[in-house]
């Protein structure tokens, strides 16, 4: 096979991914930059304009920094526990801490609402024991609520990234240091800390990046004066209809995330240097001194409370009816009910939508299915194209990760700017939702499929060809079966991402085609116990669907 053939093959394979990314990613993105450039030129960098960028940017950095710091404070001791101790329920806890990874922001926001909100358990509890008629504590719409949700989301990242680096640290380095006379503090400072530092930095940057680009959590748990760049883009674009300013904010946001991402990949590369994997289980022991036992129980207890409480609050709240919610005086009467779930089937006149709420479930599932198909085809094609492209594939690969650094809100804004007339009009073309979701999911799918493809040794294909298989037959007999698992995992991943996607969807979904996250968001924004209950019920449904998806991925991975 000549190089020329490979080259041509690569070009053919590239056509679809490049056309798709060009039309649905780079074109809208350029439009965002164009309007940002226009406003910068027409208004100049006036004090007013700078102020309007600086304020949300400042708050974004502030809340992200604070969230990251607190996440680290909780994550590091937990990472140490996972890396160095064997304890009862470690496996279960490992699965539990994975939960936040897959949970859509709306579900998390709804969960914290069920716990801390005016109709949440804490306020209900206080009202009932103190005999109050109105919720005594305003816990939502505050910085602590935002930070709490961010900690909930990102502690896992610290535990996973730092914990695994710590676990892979040869325990004999530390032992050698202490035999050489280093007291425990010095062992940590001179040996452990410098060796796991790159992974701490990488994990912190990743957490900071997620906190920096966090949208749904802040939109739903924050409030007046607590707008980050993302939320400000949303407000300016959809409420103030100030698209140029939204574009400028998007551009600022994009530049920031790109810087953060390159920092992250720099530290990730560093952290893989010099670590020798050790024998399984070496250096891991059961806590036996009382200090270790207290420590391990404290961490385990804290993690369980952190991860289980909000979700349990959500689940129970969705099946609990509170009479006081209906404005009745006197003692709060609580009872179990399925009313909220039944209500989801009914299309009421005063409904927020033109369709029964359950239609949102159907829409979400359809969108998610389409997303899985689009992103998987795109991912597989791109993986093959990358395999064929030789040296430049590394450059292209980095380029392809761009959607990862682009916030969904920015993408949504770009779509509004670009697709505002036939044939593709946001207002009439519901397919833009799965298209946007596919772009969000695409990097993940590629990251799943590409390694699987590259791990197929070329000799297998050659062996099949030598034995008389035609190229198509080679693909069918060799590639296809070996890629099936990765493709399925990628498909479920993108399915789940689509189910929970909120940022781009708020820009693109039409009232008659709500998705589950949009419906939850709208229910929560409305007054009344029934709306609240439906939000809880719908969020619980979404939680269950996502949980099942990830269970399937986990099962396949083994």
């Amino acid at each position: 096979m000549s190089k020329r053939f490979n080259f041509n093959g690569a070009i053919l394979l590239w056509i679809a991914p490049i056309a798709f990314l060009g039309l649905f990613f780079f074109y809208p993105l350029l439009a965002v930059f164009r309007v940002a450039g226009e406003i910068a030129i027409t208004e100049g960098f006036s004090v007013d304009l700078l102020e309007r960028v600086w304020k949300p940017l400042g708050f974004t950095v502030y809340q992200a920094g604070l969230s990251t710091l607190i996440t680290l404070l909780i994550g590091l001791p937990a990472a140490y526990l996972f890396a160095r101790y064997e304890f009862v329920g470690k496996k279960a806890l490992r699965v539990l801490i994975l939960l936040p990874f897959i949970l859509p922001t709306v579900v998390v926001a709804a969960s914290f609402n069920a716990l801390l909100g005016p109709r949440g358990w804490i306020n209900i509890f206080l009202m009932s024991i103190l005999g109050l008629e109105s919720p005594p504590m305003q816990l939502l719409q505050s910085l602590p609520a935002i930070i709490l949700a961010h900690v909930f989301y990102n502690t896992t990242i610290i535990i996973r990234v730092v914990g695994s680096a710590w676990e892979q640290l040869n325990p004999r380095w530390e032992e050698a240091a202490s035999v050489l006379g280093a007291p425990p503090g010095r062992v940590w400072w001179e040996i452990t800390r410098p060796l796991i530092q790159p992974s701490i930095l990488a994990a912190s940057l990743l957490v900071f990046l997620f906190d920096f680009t966090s949208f749904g959590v802040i939109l739903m748990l924050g409030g007046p004066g607590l707008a980050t760049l993302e939320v400000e883009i949303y407000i300016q674009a959809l409420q103030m209809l100030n698209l140029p300013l939204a574009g400028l904010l998007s551009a600022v946001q994009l530049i920031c995330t790109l810087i953060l991402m390159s920092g992250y990949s720099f530290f990730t590369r560093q952290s893989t240097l010099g670590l020798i994997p050790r024998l399984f289980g070496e250096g891991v022991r059961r806590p036996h001194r009382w200090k270790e036992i207290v420590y391990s129980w404290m961490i385990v207890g804290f993690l369980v409370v952190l991860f289980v409480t909000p979700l349990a609050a959500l689940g129970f709240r969705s099946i609990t009816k509170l009479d006081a919610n209906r404005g009745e005086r006197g003692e709060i009467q609580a009872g179990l009910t399925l009313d909220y779930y039944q209500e989801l089937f009914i299309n009421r006149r005063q409904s927020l939508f033109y369709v029964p709420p359950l239609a949102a479930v159907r829409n979400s599932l359809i969108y998610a299915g389409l997303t899985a198909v689009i992103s998987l085809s795109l991912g597989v094609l791109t993986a093959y194209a990358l395999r064929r492209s030789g040296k430049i594939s590394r450059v292209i690969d980095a380029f392809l990760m761009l959607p990862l650094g682009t916030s969904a809100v920015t993408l949504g804004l770009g779509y509004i700017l670009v697709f505002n007339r036939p044939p593709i009009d946001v207002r009439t073309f519901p397919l833009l939702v799965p298209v946007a979701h596919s772009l969000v999911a695409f990097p993940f799918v590629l990251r799943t499929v590409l390694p699987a493809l590259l791990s197929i040794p070329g000799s297998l294909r050659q062996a099949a060809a030598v034995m008389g298989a035609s190229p198509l037959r080679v693909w069918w007999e060799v590639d296809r079966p070996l890629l099936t698992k990765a493709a399925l995992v990628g498909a479920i991943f993108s399915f789940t991402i689509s189910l929970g996607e909120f940022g781009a969807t708020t820009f693109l979904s039409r009232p008659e085609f709500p998705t589950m996250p949009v419906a939850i968001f709208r229910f929560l924004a409305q007054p009344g116990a029934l709306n609240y209950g439906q939000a809880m019920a719908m969020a619980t449904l979404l939680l269950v669907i996502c949980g099942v998806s990830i269970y399937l991925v986990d099962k396949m991975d083994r």
Partner: protein
Amino acid sequence: MLELDQVWKAYLGKPLLRGISLKVEVGKTACLLGPSGSGKSTLLRIIAGLEIPERGKVLWKGQDLSGIPVHQREFGLMFQDYALFPHRSVYENVAFGLRMQNLPKETIRERALEALNMVNLAGFASRKVTDLSGGEQQRVALARALAPRPRLLMLDEPLGALDRTLRESLLEELRKLLRKTGITAIYVTHDQEEAFFIADQLFLLHDGLVIQQGSPVSLYDCPINPWAARFLGMSNLVEGCVSSLNPLKVSTPIGELTGKIVGKAARLKEQVVVLLKSDIGDWCNRNGFLNQIYGKVIDVVFREHSYRVKLRFKNGQELTFFTSVVLELGQELWIGLPPESVLVYSAEEDALCERSRSSS
């Protein structure tokens, strides 16, 4: 002087060390010899304080060390995989222990360089440890362990990861260094040649116990049981039955042998195992030796200073001997062995050894 008193330790619920007691003389090199999995490394880790024994004591000059944490024991330990700090240079690795003693900068520098000199790595101070070859890493690890002048140096299979030629030269160097510094050392290995080469005192570990101790010569002269004999590379074992007590005679398939009993006194008609030591000797001359056996040469291998000859006997058993005499393949001959080369062990003891070996 280091002393272990009845040290017990279990690993994954199984007893690994079952009451180890030993004494290491000051300035001597003691060698813990045992098969892999016999708990040698664990014993070192217990002495270093990295593991806590379930029972028993570690004493240094009579002082119980159980309350003293690892970093205050002033012992040196060279790990099997060296455990060089990957983020530090060769010099920084060697200077680490000296820095922990809070010595003045110049002293640290002087002694770190001196230690590097000692292992012939004078020019390597600023190199990265990750760029070194296996043998160089081994020397850095040794220099790092020696630099703080520990009261006791422990070496855990220090040559295990190196290839054969490198091992031989490094072993020679190590032996010289240990003699020169006069440091008290414990050397752990599973290789009996290494152990015989380097040890002043040998401790043979089996099944969580020290089954034999003494000088290399005493161990070689008289292995305490058939297992020890096999482990030390002596494989000429023949089953037999005691036919006479004074002098001790055993009737075996290859003939009647006169020897000496090891362990408790033999009984008449007792089933025994006989070890025929295969030392280089003048055994081709049957005259003058009590034990005369007749066999056929089936294999001759030339070794540096002798021939290793395999003989087959009439019952089909094959035994190996060393000789300086050239023999022909297929040649049949009588050989003679002195009684001190024929060691007799109770068969029960051997069965015990075999059982524990197959269960482990």
